[in-house]
């Protein structure tokens, strides 16, 4: 009973977060300026980090959190590269 409750809660959380990813993707596809799209991808990376951590909890594997660590720390660099490039001067 308790186990079913736990997996249900986590699955609902994952579905809600994936809905957030889809909303951000719509803005990323229709956004008028490149800055809009960069904002969308910035929030998408944060949501994806949490989704990975939730999957790790669903599978009950502690070591899977390493992927979330790498992703959460490095996704920031993509955003920084594109943001520096958009200032019309090269990086």
């Amino acid at each position, binding site marked *: 009973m308790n186990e079913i409750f736990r997996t249900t809660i986590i699955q609902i959380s*994952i579905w809600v*977060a994936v809905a957030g990813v889809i909303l951000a993707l719509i803005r990323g596809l229709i956004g008028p300026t490149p800055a809009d799209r960069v904002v969308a991808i910035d929030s998408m990376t944060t949501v994806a*980090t949490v989704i990975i951590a939730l999957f790790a909890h669903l599978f009950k594997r502690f070591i899977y959190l390493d992927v979330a660590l790498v992703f959460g*720390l490095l996704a920031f660099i993509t955003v920084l590269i594109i943001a520096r490039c958009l200032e019309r001067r090269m990086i």
Partner: protein
Amino acid sequence: MIILNVIRVYAGYFFLIIGSLFLFLGPLGILRFPDVYNRLQAGTKSTTLGAISALFGIGLLEPGWLGKIVILILFILLTNPVSSHAIGRSAYRSKVPLCGKSVVDKCEEEHIYKEAK
């Protein structure tokens, strides 16, 4: 002791639900707000709060994971504000216009980015 455990588990569920709700509301704000600077508010602040809350909920549900979870929260706290600042600055410098309802532009008034023109 058992009561403490029950409280811990339900607090974990609570934080998880709250966090995933904010993870949904942030992208919704990105979709609905009128211009880049408003979208930056929704996209960064709300997502940071949601991520921290959901990760803390996971840490409460599995107490053995709390160390790595805290490191993950620290990374998100460090990186998200820096990247949002960089996006805002680059958007202002590449002359993305403000939306029509905005009333004040302090950077324009005080000539902070004048040399960039």
